[in-house]
């Protein structure tokens, strides 16, 4: 029992810090660079993203293991997973708009962006590939969400500081964002070897 628990904890830690999707696998970069200009949007995106990630991972897991595996149609996983994500995003858009319009105005704008984020598709694909259990899948999704949130928030705070800086012209904007991300990735190498999965 406690062994299980430790494994879940390690999964979360590994997905969020050691194998952070942004810093070690280059995923989610478009959104990462797009919404990390301001802290407020970064926080909004983080919350929405983690929530959608958990739900989509759970749904994908259930459909994959209870429908696709028995029917032997796992080769359709890309289409099915992207369909689940698009449907989920669309549904939560509609539901949020009706039930909590206040929250919708705060977080709804990020919903549309999420479906083009590769991390959200990568997580169910990894879950299916590694044959994770439901709990493990959820832990992995949560860790990945937290990792993305962490990356976004750190980046936003650094970019706010950079706004005052006199960055050389060719490096202004994205190139500099890449350099900063590289430096953060360099710092995060310190976590390597912490957990072997």
């Amino acid at each position: 029992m406690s062994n299980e628990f430790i494994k879940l904890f390690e999964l979360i830690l590994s997905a969020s810090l050691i194998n952070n999707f942004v810093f070690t696998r280059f995923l989610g970069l478009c959104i990462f660079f797009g919404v990390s200009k301001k802290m407020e949007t970064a926080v909004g995106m983080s919350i929405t993203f983690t929530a959608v990630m958990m739900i989509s991972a759970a749904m994908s897991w259930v459909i994959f293991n209870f429908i696709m595996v028995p029917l032997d149609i796992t080769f359709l996983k890309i289409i099915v997973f992207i369909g689940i994500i698009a449907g989920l995003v669309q549904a939560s858009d509609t539901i949020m708009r009706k039930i909590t319009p206040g929250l919708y105005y705060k977080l709804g704008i990020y919903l549309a962006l999420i479906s083009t984020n590769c991390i959200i598709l990568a997580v169910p694909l990894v879950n299916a590939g590694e044959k994770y259990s439901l709990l493990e899948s959820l832990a992995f999704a949560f860790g990945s969400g937290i990792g993305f949130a962490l990356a976004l928030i750190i980046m936003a705070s650094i970019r706010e500081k950079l706004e005052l800086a006199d960055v050389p012209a060719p490096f202004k904007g994205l190139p500099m964002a890449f350099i900063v991300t590289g430096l953060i990735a360099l710092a995060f190498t310190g976590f390597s070897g912490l957990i072997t999965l």
Partner: protein
Amino acid sequence: MSVKKEHELIVSVSPHVRSEETTSRIMWTVSLALLPAALAGIYFFGLKALFITALCIVSSVVSERFYLKIVGKKSVVGDGSAFLTGLLLGMNMPASLWSFSPFTAHVPVIASFVAIVITKQLFGGLGFNVFNPALIGRAFALISWPKAMTIWNEPAAAFLAMDAKTTATPLGILKEEGVTRLIEVFGDKINLYTHLLTGNRAGSIGETSAVAILIGGLFLLYRGYITWHIPVSFLGTAAVIAWVFGGKGALFTGDPIVHLISGGMMLGAWFMATDYVTSPSIRKGQIIFGIGCGFLTMLIRLKGGYPEGVMFAILIMNCFAPLIDRGVRSRVFGAVKQVKAKENRK
């Protein structure tokens, strides 16, 4: 231009820098404070150490000149910041790098370039860099040339000897073979402590002598260039974690002293983590920063893949420094707002 730069700098780091102090005086004073530790390193590791340190300083200053010339900015090399970065970087390198078979003397040069150009100048120069330049230079070198950067010379060889024996650092022994073996290597516990305190042990050039670093650190503290917040919270957290979790098997059996005076802990806590530009500027934030550094250092040392975690810990906390500053500041503002709101309600 350079006047304007200094002005900007002072604005951005105002909580520390007293207005009458110029940047250059700060830089030269910190360099002076580093001198005892650097001299101790040269004493123990010989001429090679001197060469490596000098190479780093020269490369840093040249890189800065070169870059400023290319982009057409006026030179601010006189402010001593490139010199300080070079000195710190040199002190963080193993003396064994001064070797021609295999050739590794290019490592300090490229590391200096990365430190000065990528970490500092691309961000718009001193005052705007997010990461400690010397530490990024070292991390870059460690990852690019992992072998060359982890060959450690035995200290106290002949001063002029060019090929000294290699050995493991105390932390390396601690990580792989445990504390009993470490004490065995040095004879007894007292011997171990004195070796670690004086600096008569393997390690980076400037990190070995805990006493020399402490002298420099206390000097800076006395002169008011740094405050106690970061070093004390850094070392305190590390000591507590080392004591509680550092032992084998049972809790509360670790040896905090060994952890505090080995590796780069002292140099990191007094000279790297306290860098004005890359640490939080508010006292409360500095304490959080120090605790984070201490925690991460011990996490990496005890659980991570590397035997030493000071460099990565400080770099990771550098990432968080703007966030900490923001959080602490906004909480202060938040408190004011609440009070005001209450008053308004009345």
